[in-house]
């Protein structure tokens, strides 16, 4: 289990990550979702022990990454945003070097390298120089490196960027398979990818956590309501009246004019979608309005994402006051930060 407690990172006066806490359970795929510049890579770099945190704590299998880095890092495989490959090495040579770095015993080395190469389908390029490989292959070589030694936790920073659609599906399937005996933290700014692969998602924007939940729960979060689409032919006013007054309809969100006397109504529902749908259908037919199409759909996850990202962070009054104080007195924050880093340097 990885526990992240009150993790904070400042770059000078810029706050990249603000006091975030969450846990990664065993055998779980956790999606880390946020727009560009949200603090995803910074957080992952901190979890992997590459960047020191300004404040907070990361514990991997009971060992603190800043206090017992060697022990903690043994359980980690990390694929950074840019695959960390040496352009002048051959693929096999590179993986052999990484296996040495991860202290894989010599006897297991070649079988382990063979395993990851087969898993990521890079066996056919094993004797090529990495600089001659395409972006997708480089990405997979970097991924193979993270899998060496079968670490318990995998941190993958945008692993599918730069891959073609077929490779994206392959990599997603690999990640899903990894769930059997690994935990994966997996960052992306593409929502569909996260919803296809992950059990839980952490949504982050500008360093703040906006939500930590399962995909299903997030879908429910838009009010848990379905959206009804009806395309009718007939009187617009009558139809609008019927739909609006029907039980379970929250509101008509939109009316599109499709053609002569043809309109599309989009309405938000509350409660049992099928019953409402039947009820509305009956009433419309009684009033001689033709229905050419009627269906309900789940709210768009993209909408949830955008809504969460734009939402203001929930903060207590004191924290808000503190933030305002910092905005007004940027010096106060800066000097505090400097003494902080100075102290840490002294400690080393």
């Amino acid at each position: 289990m990885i526990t992240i407690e009150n993790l904070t990172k400042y770059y000078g006066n810029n706050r990249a990550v603000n006091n975030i806490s969450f846990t990664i359970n065993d055998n779980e795929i956790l999606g880390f979702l946020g727009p560009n510049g949200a603090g995803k890579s910074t957080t992952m770099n901190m979890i992997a022990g590459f960047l020191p945190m300004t404040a907070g704590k990361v514990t991997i299998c009971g060992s603190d990454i800043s206090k017992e880095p060697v022990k903690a890092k043994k359980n980690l495989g990390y694929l950074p945003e840019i695959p960390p490959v040496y352009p002048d090495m051959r693929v096999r040579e590179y993986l052999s070097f990484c296996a040495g770095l991860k202290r894989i015993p010599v006897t297991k080395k070649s079988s382990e390298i063979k395993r990851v190469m087969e898993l990521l389908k890079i066996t056919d390029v094993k004797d090529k120089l990495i600089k001659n490989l395409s972006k997708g292959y480089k990405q997979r070589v970097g991924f193979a490196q993270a899998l060496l030694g079968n670490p318990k936790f995998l941190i993958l920073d945008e692993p599918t960027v730069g891959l073609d659609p077929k490779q994206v599906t392959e990599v997603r399937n690999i990640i899903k398979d990894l769930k059997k005996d690994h935990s994966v933290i997996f960052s992306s700014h593409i929502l569909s990818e996260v919803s296809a692969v992950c059990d839980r998602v952490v949504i982050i924007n500008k360093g703040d956590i906006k939500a930590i939940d399962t995909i299903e729960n997030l879908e429910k979060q838009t009010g848990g309501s379905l959206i009804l689409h009806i395309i009718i032919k007939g009187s617009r006013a009558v139809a609008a009246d019927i739909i609006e007054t029907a039980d379970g309809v929250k509101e008509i969100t939109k009316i599109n004019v499709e053609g002569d006397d043809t309109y599309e109504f989009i309405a938000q529902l509350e409660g049992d979608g099928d019953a409402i749908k039947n009820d509305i259908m009956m009433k419309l037919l009684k009033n001689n309005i033709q229905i050419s199409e009627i269906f309900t759909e789940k709210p768009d996850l993209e909408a949830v994402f955008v809504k969460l990202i734009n939402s203001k962070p929930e903060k207590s009054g004191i924290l808000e006051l503190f933030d305002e104080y910092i905005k007004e007195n940027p010096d106060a924050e800066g000097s505090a930060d400097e003494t902080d880093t100075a102290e840490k340097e002294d400690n080393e």
Partner: protein
Amino acid sequence: MFSIYKKDLQSFFFTPFAYIVTALFLFLFTFYFNGSIGDQSQATYFFSFANVFYNVIIMFIFLIPILTMRTFADERKFGTEVLLMTSPLNVVQIIIGKYLANITVFLFMLASSLFFPIFTAIKGEVVMSQLICAYLGFFLWGAMYIAIGQLISSFTESSILAAIIGEIVMFVFLFIDDFAMTKFIAQYPAIQSAVYAFAAQPRFAYFSQGFIRLSDIVFFISAIIVCLVWNYISIEKRRWNRG
């Protein structure tokens, strides 16, 4: 640590890099060796390997930065620093592994130059004690310069810049004793002795005369340790300051 050492050695020896640097070193060595051994213009014939070493050391300024420039600069440039830092190794092991790899290439250069004394010994006579001491001094001086070059390589992302800065710093260190001896500095004895303490050349002079003094060995080894510790600090500092 061993895997980093091995990888760095591979990057020297599986590419023409180490061979070209060594060839250049041998070329310069031959240049001075021939000039010196064939010189009969003086009234008394005088040749010693220590003198050849003296001249060759100036070439260190060009050779050693080329050897060390990529050590950390390239790791940063290719983003592979992340790989090293997130693997179960501590920074000390990374630095020592890389230092030993650089030293090994340097030893390869030195070993190839043994060719000259061996031939001289076959055809003539070589003062062995002096030769061994000169080699020891030469090695220690080179080891110190490698530590300096490696430190400078950790300051920057560009290996060319690391080489140029390294050349400047090594140039200063090579001629610091001449600087300390200038009349201007001699006005202030305290400053003169302080500056002179950094000079490596007078210390090498003892080695080349066949003396092994503890204070000289301590000077070179402590300089190496200071540079490597500073190297560690510079890498850690960059992690803290990143952004």
